[in-house]
């Protein structure tokens, strides 16, 4: 026979779960979150889902308007471009380039940034001060400008763009991790576990990280929306993804020539970028809003 509980166990959800609880109750944030998940899904499964290939065109179907237009064709839902390539397929493949790559870049720079940031938070003295100044200088240069500089050095191309943006974001994550870790280390609970004899690493892993993870996520969403815009802008300027790649900014630049006769080749990729950035920003807003509410409680 099971023992009866004689008292009600008080369940303390982890800080992260608390946050999720609040986040879930904000409808706008949830819409953004669903869109975000949808985009990730598209980015992964675009090759399976897309009706056509993004690179080879059907020369019999050149500059077909979207299906709702009188001249449209249902088998090309969003129309075709000047080489008869299906816009829908190109946009779907573009999700994995623009959105997917920006997601990977952010995760990559997040990991690197957190490692360097937390290590540097534990150092003091001249090394720390130098890093501080260096970060200040780097952070005062706008991310797009820095990315353009790096692409200028490495040469145009999608992989160079990705590297450039990663290099740009790492300092941001170093900065925020360092700041957050230092702040947490001043708190009493860290002192408590230190008195228990925990090592710095143990404190970092078990005590500090759970408490700063939302802040990092909030920064990550900011970085993600900036990354989407940067990849697209570089693609648009012809410095990022090169000619046949269906990157959203590059599709837009490619459609520019036919802006006045085939406006959908410009509207659609623009809308796609806008959609991705708004979804990301909604998630970010939601996290920040939830963080604020949690603090107030």
């Amino acid at each position, binding site marked *: 026979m099971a023992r009866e509980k004689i008292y009600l166990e008080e369940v303390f959800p982890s800080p992260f779960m608390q946050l999720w609880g609040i986040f879930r109750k904000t409808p706008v944030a949830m819409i953004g979150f669903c869109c975000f998940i949808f985009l990730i899904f598209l980015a992964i499964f675009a090759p399976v889902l897309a009706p056509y290939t993004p690179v080879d065109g059907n020369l019999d179907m050149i500059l077909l308007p979207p299906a709702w237009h009188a001249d449209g064709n249902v088998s090309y839902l969003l129309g075709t471009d000047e080489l008869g390539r299906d816009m829908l397929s190109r946009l779907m493949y573009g999700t994995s380039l623009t959105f997917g790559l920006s997601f990977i870049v952010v995760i990559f720079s997040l990991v690197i940034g957190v490692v360097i940031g937390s290590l540097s938070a534990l150092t003091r003295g001249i090394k720390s001060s130098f890093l501080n100044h260096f970060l200040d200088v780097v952070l005062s240069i706008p991310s797009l400008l820095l990315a353009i500089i790096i692409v200028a050095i490495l040469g145009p191309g999608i992989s160079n763009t990705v590297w450039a943006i990663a290099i740009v974001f790492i300092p941001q994550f170093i900065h925020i991790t360092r700041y957050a870790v230092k702040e947490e280390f001043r708190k009493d609970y860290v002192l408590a576990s230190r008195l228990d004899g925990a090592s710095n690493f143990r404190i970092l892993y078990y005590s500090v990280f759970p408490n700063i993870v939302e802040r990092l996520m909030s920064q990550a969403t900011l970085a993600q929306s900036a990354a989407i815009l940067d990849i697209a802008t570089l693609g648009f300027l012809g410095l990022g993804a090169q000619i046949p790649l269906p990157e959203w900014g590059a599709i837009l630049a490619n459609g520019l020539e036919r802006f*006045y*006769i085939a406006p959908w080749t410009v509207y659609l990729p623009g809308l796609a970028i806008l959609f991705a950035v708004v979804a990301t920003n909604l998630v970010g807003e939601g996290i920040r809003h939830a963080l604020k509410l949690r603090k107030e409680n």
Partner: protein
Amino acid sequence: MAVLTMNSNSIFSLTIAAFISLLMGCNEGNKLSLSERSIIYCSEGSPETFNPQLSTSGTTSDATAKQLYNSLIVYKGKNNTLGPSLAKSWHVTRDGKKITFYLRQDVSFHQTHYFTPTRLFNADDVLFSFNRILNKDHPFHHVSGNQYPFFQSVKFSELVEKVEKINDFTVRFILKRNDSSFLANLATDFAVILSAEYGQMLQDKRAEHEIDISPIGTGPFKLEDYRVGSLIRFYRHESYWQEKAKIEQLVYDISPSKTSRLTKLLAKECDVSSYPIAHAKIAERSDLQLESITSLNVGYFAFNTKKEPFNNKLVRQAISLAINKQALIETVYQGQAAWAKSILPETSWAYDKNTPELGYDPVRAKSLLEVAGYPQGFIMDIWAMPVQRPYNPNAVTMAKLIQADLKKIGVTVKIISYEWSTFLRRLSQGEHQSFLLGWTADHPDPDNFFTPILSCSASELGNNRTFWCNKEYDQLLEKALQTTNMDKRKGYYAKAMAIINEEMPLLPIAHSKRFQARGFDVEGDILSNFGGISFYNAAKNTINNEAKSIVQSKIAEEASN
């Protein structure tokens, strides 16, 4: 009550009048406003130089030849007959070796902020201009790079023994042999007349290179201002030897981006636009018109025959076989071009209908590649020109289509494009494997296609970027020039075309029309069949009067109420 309405009505119409006059910017009474006396032309690129002797690029001729300069003789009328210009008349001896020109005596050079002429045009200027090309000891021969591509490609200095001054207004050209295309060459945009007096002044100042940067000519416009990559401003030449140009100011707005040219045209920021895209859009606007002219040109895809793997004839043939020309013409030219069987357009009298052609056959292409030793295919680059030319309105798209075609036979293509002047420079250094380019004829003589594009002399110095040099082909061209018998010439050119299509140094793609768009308020011919454009006859009709008449009719209408 009625009076009141009347009042408010007239106030209303006065406001309209004031608003429209504000809009039109007319505040100087009868004088036409600035925009009515000027034309803005959206051009596709910066000229390389202001001396058309030095360049064969269409952009350079468009910006310089017919605006700043005159030549001795010109093509006139529908039938393209030679007519007088700076030379009143000319005389050719029976053996065709001595040509005498009688010059006009009332032609003045430009007066600008950098030069004031003290004398009129005379024989010295003709000698100065041609000796610069012919004579290696001429003080200006080596200025600006010593390259006279058009004249080198037609072997001008080998042909002309000397140019003589008979008296102040008579010059004589003495040729080494009879050349049936000589007069045609003198009527091109390249054979312009420079000022000897200006040359002397620059020599005294030791600033010889200025002659091609700050030009002085006899043409209907003079250069006022040039900002690289941004604009060229011309003023009217007030003492032009013919009737003055109708517009006072001509501005070239240099806009290499096709979209921005179209945008400026649609937003009425330029009056005339070169090589417009989106013809359908322009056609649907009531205030714009699209015009085109059949120009003698050819767009081609060519190989660097000095580089692997294109030094092998079989590879060149294979690649040519794999390209679906019909698709290129439909997509890139939107069907507005004729299929090119050879480099010579069908409209030329020397065209031969029976020229053999390879056609489109990817299966044979694949087997040819195997024979040539590339069963796995290879990686190659295609240099696509960055600008729009009549012979190829969109080289990058064409390159993409070719890329797709060649993928089918296992050849991987990398597309390369540089800014126009860089592109041409690197091309002349032979860094490329293959390239998309073309040629627009400068005069109707068929030699103007064969010699400049593919002759040996052009491969050393001129425009032959395939670096292909075939002795038999060159001999045929020479024979064709030495006779005036049309049938014989036609026969030689037919053989030359057959050699090209067998050897495949290049794959001719299409002969297209040259398009231009302008606002309905711009009148007068601008495009010409050969060579560059001319704004001499262009004018603006006054919209102001139209606007005033609208306002007046409105007022009259209301008064009658």
